[in-house]
Each structure stands twice: as C-alpha cells, then as structure tokens.
C-alpha cells in the first residue's frame, strides 16, 4: 500500500474514524485529484461521518447542505435580503439618490444572504469541506444545477456578476440511493460504496466510540450484529445503531449479552416492526448464543 494512503488511513483513525483501505484510498484520491467524492451505502454505515472527520483532519470548516425534496437555489446558494433592500430603496429615495445609485447599493454583497454553496465558494481562510448530504432527496433539477457549481466552482449572480472560488472546497456528497443519481453528476465525482463493516472493524469501532464497553461486550455485540445482518431483514442495522446499542448496554451495566437483555433492548438495533417480529423466540436465542461464542476472540 502506498505510504500516503496508509498515512491517510492512520490520520482518519486518529480522528476517530476506523477506515478500511477502500475508504482511505477514496479520501486520498479525492484530495489529490481535487474531485468531489460521492459516497453511497445503506443508512448508518458512516457516510456523513467521513465529511466530518475530513474537516477535523484538515482542520477546516465543515459547511453542510442538507438536501430535501423541493430544495431550491434560494436555500442552497444565496438569497437577497429583501427587507434590507426595501429599506435601502426608501432611504435612497429620501436622500434623493438616482435609481442607478440605489440599484448599486441594493445589489451589493452587503444585501446578499450567503447560503451553504456560496459560503463554501467564497470562504477566504482556505478550502472548507462542503458536505452535500442526501443528494438523492433533492429533485433532478437541483442535481443539474449542482453539476454546474461542482464543475466550475463559480457562481453567477445576475445582478452582481460571476463569483469564482477563492479556494476550491473539498466536496463530499452522500446518497442513500432512494433515487438513482444521474450519470452526469456521477461522472464529475469519484465514487465510493461503503458496505457494512467486517466483524473485526465493527468491534474496533465499538472500542473506539464507546470506550466504556468492555472487550467482551464489544466482541459479543459485533458478533451478534454480524450474524443478524446475515439474515433477510427489511432494514439492516448500521454502525450508528451498533454504537447506540453499545451505549445503551453500558448504561445498563452489562458486561455481556444475554437473551433477556437482548430482548429488552433489541429496539436499538432493529427499527422495523416486521423485523422485530420475525427475529424473536428460538431464532433470537440462537443469535445470542452465537454471539456469546465459546470465549473465542473476535477474529477477522
């Protein structure tokens, strides 16, 4: 493995993100090639976390744009400060300014409300990390607009002219795949698909994120979730659920898993009524038994 990729991996780990080689490679390539990184994967596998960790690692600001249906340019990019503009117009009139003078004042940077994309492009202190979260939730039309911003890193405001990026931001896009991301946007990016973590990685994540959990408990939780994801589920639990569950069990002062505890707290992990109903009784007991193991260490 190339030295820089290994050091990226270590740096990510120092900041609390246990990264597989593929994740470290993607982060490294995105930084070196200065391309946006599109991350896909099931809910809760740690997509958003990568952007947060990247910002900590580069010691820079994280600018987040949460996408949703109906997200428009006014919310994502910029909006004129209308009350301020109105005020300026009235003041200008009273002072007897000419219409062109008034126009110059009201369409200046001072009357502009910066939204995340504009903020990311105009940040002076150095390149920020721009997180465009759940881009699949925005409309196709917004995606096309995003394409323009991400290819040139410049924004044209008709009244002001074109603003070019001071520093090209590091861009991370995440998608839950609730809609297929268009080919054009995908081409602009590098692409990373995050799978559910391996058993070994998951145990390490628990140890890192929930230090209060004993080694035995962490391993049992890891084995339980690993076995659980192996069966057919409507909503497979992600790492976020694992961490929640580990924290819950620590609060309950558990040193290991037993059937009763698992039955009482399974709602931390399975969040679909049908899954909860299906994984019960003898099957749950078998899963718990499997997790308790024969005292063997959690292998890879």
């Amino acid at each position, binding site marked *: *493995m190339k030295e820089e*990729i290994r050091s990226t991996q270590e740096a990510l780990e120092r900041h609390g993100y246990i990264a597989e080689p593929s994740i470290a*490679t993607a982060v490294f*390539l995105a930084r070196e090639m200065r391309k946006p990184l599109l991350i*896909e994967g099931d809910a809760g596998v740690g997509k958003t976390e990568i952007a947060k960790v990247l910002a900590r690692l580069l010691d820079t600001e994280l600018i987040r744009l949460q996408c949703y*249906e109906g997200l428009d340019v006014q919310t994502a990019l910029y909006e004129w400060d209308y009350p301020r503009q109105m005020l300026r117009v009235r003041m200008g009139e009273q002072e007897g300014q000419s*219409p062109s003078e008034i126009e110059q004042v009201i369409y200046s940077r001072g009357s502009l409300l910066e939204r995340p994309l504009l903020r990311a492009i105009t940040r002076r202190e150095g390149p920020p990390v721009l997180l465009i979260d759940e881009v699949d939730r925005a409309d196709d039309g917004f995606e096309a607009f995003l394409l323009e911003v991400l290819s040139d890193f410049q924004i044209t405001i008709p009244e002001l002219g074109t603003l070019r990026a001071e520093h090209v931001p590091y861009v991370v896009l995440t998608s839950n795949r609730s*809609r297929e991301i268009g080919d054009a946007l995908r*081409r602009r990016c590098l*692409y990373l698909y995050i799978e559910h973590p391996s058993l070994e990685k998951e145990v390490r994540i628990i140890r890192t994120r929930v230090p209060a959990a004993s080694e035995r408990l962490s391993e049992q939780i890891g084995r339980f979730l690993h076995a659980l994801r192996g069966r057919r589920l409507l909503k497979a639990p992600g790492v976020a659920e694992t961490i929640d569950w580990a924290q819950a069990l620590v609060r309950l002062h558990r040193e290991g898993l037993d059937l009763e505890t698992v039955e009482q707290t399974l709602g931390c992990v399975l969040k679909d009524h049908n899954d909860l109903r299906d994984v019960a009784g003898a099957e749950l007991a078998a899963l718990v038994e499997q997790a308790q193991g024969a005292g063997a260490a959690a292998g890879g």
Partner: protein
Amino acid sequence: MTPGRDLVGHLARFAEALRERGVRAGLSDEIDAVAALTLVDISDREEVRRALRIALKIRPRDAGAFDELFERLWGSRDEERAARNRPPKDRRGPARPGKVLPAALSGQEVERESVTGDTPGYSPEALLRRKPFDECSPADLAAMERLISKLALRLATRRSRRLVPTRGRGRVDPRRSFRAAVATDGEFLRLARRARAIELPRIVVLCDTSGSMDPHSRFLLAFLLSLRKEARGTELFAFNTSLVRLTPWVSSGRIAPTLERLAAGVPDWSGGTRIGESLARFVIDYMDEMVNRRTTVVIFSDGLDRGDVAALEGAMRAIRSRAGRVLWLNPLLGDPRYEPTARGMAIALPFVDVFAPAHNLESLEKLLPLLAA
C-alpha cells in the same frame, strides 16, 4: 509522473470490456482512472482494484462484473490470486447477446396467428379498445399506439414541492417582484408569484414474458413504451426465469423498431417463470434507487410461478414496504371464470393495492388514473 502507454492501453481495453458487460464507464471515467493510477502503488494489485472501483464509479450492482473482469484482464500473479478469496459471482448473470425474445415479442408470430377479419388500423376505437390482445394484428398496434399516447397525456397530475414562476395564483416571489419594482422606481405594481410545479409520475414496470404470457407480451410492451414517451422516468423490466432491465434498450423513438431492438438484444428464456427469484433480484439490485413512496410499481403477470414461493413473499413484502402503490395486472382476470388460485398469485395478493385485468386496451385505459403520480 505519466503512466506508460501500456497502462493506458490496458485500461482502455478494460473499460471496453466493462461496457460490453453493460457497465457504464465513459471516457471521462477512464481519464479519472488513469489519474488515479498515477497516485497509487500500481504494484499492489488490491490497491489498483480499489482505486479503479472508485475512479470508474462502479456501483454495487456492477461490482460482480467488475471483479470478474478485473480477475481476468488485470494481469495477476498466481500466488496473489490464491491468497485472495474468489470474488462474488456476477449477480446479474452473464448477458448473452444475439438471442431473441419469445416469439410474441418479435412480432412475426403474432402476425401469423392473427385471425381477425377486421381491416387493421380502421377498426372503430371502441372495438379496438375491447379487443383482447391475443386477437390483435400488428397493424392494430399502430392505431393503439395513437390511442395510448392520447391517454398517457392525462398522466402528469401531481404537484411537486418545487416552486416555479407562474402567471396565476401562488406564493409571492420577492426576488422577481423586487426586480420588477426596480424598473418602476421602487413601486410594486405587480407581484411575481411562484406555484408548485407539475411532476411526472414515477412508474416501475415488471413484465412477465414467460410462455404463459406470450400472447400478451408484445402489446403490453407496446403500451409500456408509449407510456414511457409521456412519463420519461418509467423503468421497464422483463422477467421470466431471470430479470432483465429493458430501459437501456428503449429510446424515445418509434415503438416498432424498439421492439425489434429488444428482440435482438435481450437474452432468451424458455420454460417456467420464477417470479419470486426475479422480484427478489429486483429488490436487491434496483429497488433502492428506483422505488420510493411516490413510485407506482406495476407487475404484469399471470402469477403462474414455478419458483420459490418464500422468495416471492419476501420480495413482495419488501416492495410493499417501500413503494407508494403496487399494482398487479393479470391478463387472465379478463376471463370471468378465473379465480386467483395460482399459488404465486395467492401469496402475492395481500401485498397488492390494486389487482386488475390487463387483457385489452380498455382495461389498460382504466389503469391510467392509478398510474398518475
């Protein structure tokens, strides 16, 4: 450092092979891949694999094909290969080009079997609408096509959450109002407004093309292709013993050539239907991206399943939990004597919102309001 010419050529051949397998990898992806390879340790084969997956934007559903081709084409040393586990098998099954669709899809068979005495194309609309598909001649198809496109226009009805400028009523748009006011010395003579845009419906169609559906397939596909002209986001799948995504073969052009293209490009299946396995494949490979709460999932099938009933139940449950609406269209339902006792049908029914006949154009016409977004 620039990579050797050898590497670039190798990469081009690799991308070509990917495209042949239906994995979208364009020139810009190749350029990204070359750039990525200059940044990684190309003597480390696993690192090259990871970098190529990232730079060529390989989606999970294409991962099987990618791994297989990487194993084959990216010069490997034996000990490395032995050290690694075998890659997962290609989940989509190998594409077999050059095969033909079941006879009913290619059209010739239908022509020969046609027994109608009406002058094709001049049939009164009403008669055409009630004519069962298995009695139609290909010439009726053209007339149907025109009728369908008229019907499909009624489809787009749902209002999006996105706001677009409107001349009518709607929410005040301060930006455009202000812009207009500047021209009139700061007086707001007229307020600009925005209203919610009209949205195209989202439809995913899974069409059974097995032997028992043969007489219906061509007309159903013709109907679906016309539908796609109006609702461009419509995704089409055909299934039989395996699942094939038809959308890439479908262009917005005329319907007859598209059907010919389908016949030439889609692998042939014969024998029984495996509805359960086909739908389960759809759930794994495509559902996340193509189905959400606004999507209508339409399944055309007679429910005569020879496969795994448990798989069918699981797949239907998954689709039901995610889709806005699930329609099951059964051509046999046009026969008043039919009861849905087929094993597969009985399993699927609890997960279906609308169970309707689809044996002639009139029955499809009744569907349109249900398909609207």
